[in-house]
């Protein structure tokens, strides 16, 4: 197949390979269906970005892209690349501006039918209790820089210590909500200042909090272990490290763009700016990026707690009746040092996941004990009008994708196109007819985020399922949405 002048070879129905050309160090590999190439990837720069990433010093095996691939900065969104920790580089473009943007899924023991007529009120109260929108702030009191540094070092532990959740929540969060070797001293005062009033805020754009119902179960055993049942009310939270993370990325891109000459790199895109992992710049970025990741986990932890309190108050029920508890929390914008088998040998690599979710298999030491028999939950949100999915990681993901899967739907329309397409429509009415209550800061956000601005996430999830990378457990359907 030839896409925009790039030759792509079919490996199988769900996997395509870009052979090495020019200065590429490894081939590119894209998980996608033929339909995706024909319909959404025809003129997408993202394929070129898969090739660009293949130029990164120390890259191992393949420059990978998940089926939600679309144009990003430096790396494509949906990009995965592992670099040798001794000879390779770390690139902020392989993590993104929203460091540890991620998804958290919490469950309740409520059945949809029992609270159907309370969804409107729940959405109103959630919207009032959780700050949303551009520059949102003030979920909790403004913190001083010492407190922010505690968050950067301790992640979700800060929230638990301050009464926003329980120890069990930590066990059910990727990295237990506190990635090791965070270095708050590598985070600029500017980044800290940007984060001071943003702990516990949702932000804007595609970030959201959803009340969902479990619509369909595909894997009964895994669903039972995760505590999912049909018609159950669950809550999904999608947000990240807010302004603090954006500033960390910005600060280090500045440093690395200017040090490109120092290391003799000649990369095809400035946004791929990078430094050797073991260099001072590389270590500083890693320490700062991990700190921002901890800020994000703490952020989702606080939001979850605020959401639980909203449920308690709105429905006037006790914790025991509500049984609101975390299923799992995953990040989908991060770089992590992990051990993977390369050429038959265990090797430490820096896995960049930029719009990709870790998808570790059953019995992996890094997943919670209660999920060891099934594999790590992979949380894949769709658009606000259709559905989201819960999948689980597999051994094949370890073999093929450095233990990674997709992270979402991916846009098919620009914000401007979505706004144009929304003209003359009453999107709130359309969503209401589908049984979805929505509240957002402004109608513009709803229009920009309209369902058809996104790919059908089921196509994305099916590619990963059929490729055996992450297998489907359940489909979730939104009934209440709050957005910025």
């Amino acid at each position: 197949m030839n896409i925009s002048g790039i030759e792509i070879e079919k490996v199988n129905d769900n996997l395509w390979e870009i052979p090495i050309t020019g200065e590429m160090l490894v081939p590119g590999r894209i998980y996608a269906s033929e339909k995706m190439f024909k319909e959404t990837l025809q003129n997408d720069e993202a394929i070129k970005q898969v090739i660009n990433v293949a130029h990164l010093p120390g890259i191992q095996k393949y420059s990978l892209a998940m089926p939600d691939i679309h144009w990003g900065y430096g790396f494509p969104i949906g990009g995965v690349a592992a670099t040798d920790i001794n000879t390779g580089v770390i690139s902020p473009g392989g993590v993104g501006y929203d460091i540890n943007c991620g998804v958290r899924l919490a469950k309740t023991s409520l059945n949809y039918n029992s609270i159907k007529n309370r969804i409107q009120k729940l959405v109103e109260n959630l919207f009032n209790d959780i700050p949303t929108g551009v520059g949102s702030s003030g979920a909790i009191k403004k913190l001083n820089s010492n407190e922010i540094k505690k968050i950067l070092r301790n992640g979700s532990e800060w929230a638990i210590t301050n009464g926003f959740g329980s120890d069990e929540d930590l066990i059910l969060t990727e990295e237990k909500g506190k990635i090791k070797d965070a270095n708050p001293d590598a985070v600029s005062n500017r980044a800290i200042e940007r984060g001071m009033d943003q702990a516990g805020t949702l932000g804007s754009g595609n970030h959201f909090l959803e009340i969902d119902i479990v619509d369909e179960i595909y894997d009964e055993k895994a669903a039972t272990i995760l505590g999912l049942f049909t018609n159950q009310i669950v809550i999904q939270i999608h947000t990240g490290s807010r302004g603090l993370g954006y500033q960390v990325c910005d600060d280090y891109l500045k440093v690395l763009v200017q040090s490109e000459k120092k290391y003799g790199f000649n990369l095809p895109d400035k946004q791929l700016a990078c430094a050797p992992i073991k260099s001072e710049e590389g270590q500083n970025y890693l320490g700062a990026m991990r700190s921002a990741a901890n800020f994000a986990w703490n952020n989702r932890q606080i939001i979850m707690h605020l959401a639980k309190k909203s449920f308690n108050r709105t429905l006037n029920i006790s914790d025991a009746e509500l049984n609101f508890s975390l299923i799992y929390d995953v990040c989908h914008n991060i770089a992590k040092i992990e051990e993977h088998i390369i050429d038959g040998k265990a090797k430490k690599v820096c896995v960049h996941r930029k719009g990709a979710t870790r998808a570790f298999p059953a019995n992996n030491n890094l997943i919670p004990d209660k999920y060891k028999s099934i594999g790590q939950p992979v949380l894949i949100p769709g658009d606000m009008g259709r559905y989201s999915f819960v999948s689980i990681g597999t051994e094949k993901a370890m073999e093929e994708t450095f233990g990674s899967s997709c992270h979402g739907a991916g846009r098919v329309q620009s914000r401007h196109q979505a706004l144009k397409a929304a003209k003359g429509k009453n999107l709130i009415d359309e969503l209401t007819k589908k049984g979805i209550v929505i509240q957002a800061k402004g109608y513009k956000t709803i229009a920009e985020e309209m369902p058809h601005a996104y790919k059908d996430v089921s196509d994305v999830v099916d590619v990963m399922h059929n490729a055996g990378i992450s297998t489907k457990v359940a489909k979730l359907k939104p009934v209440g949405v709050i957005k910025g």
Partner: protein
Amino acid sequence: MPYKFIEHPADIAVEVDGNSLEELFKSACYAWREAAMNISSFNKESSKKFIFNGTTSEILLIELLSELNFQLYSKKWVFVTIQNLAIDKTDSEYHLEIELFGQTFHPEIHNMKEEIKAITYHQVKIEKVGNLYKTLIVFDV
């Protein structure tokens, strides 16, 4: 206006031009403000001065716009007019000095359009085409 917003799959892209490097930088500042907010009246309440150095004019431009972004989201301050803007070039470095008049920004009162996460380096390339300096700038939102 010496800038034009163009289609971008996910974010905001703007083509900017100017008769000189200084004019191009000024246009970029106003384009950034239009992308971020929608307020009709401004008050010159205070002034701020900034100095930047960079190995390329593109780096200098990204630094300037990133500073405006930081001032808005962290300091809740937005520029109203650009009082002075001067760019010097030595053999190895560009140097920029700018003085801005501006006002306190109130997110709850003023109309914020988009949260600009960052000014990206993606496709930024300042070129002289005829008598005009031009570049594309992409804001990550």
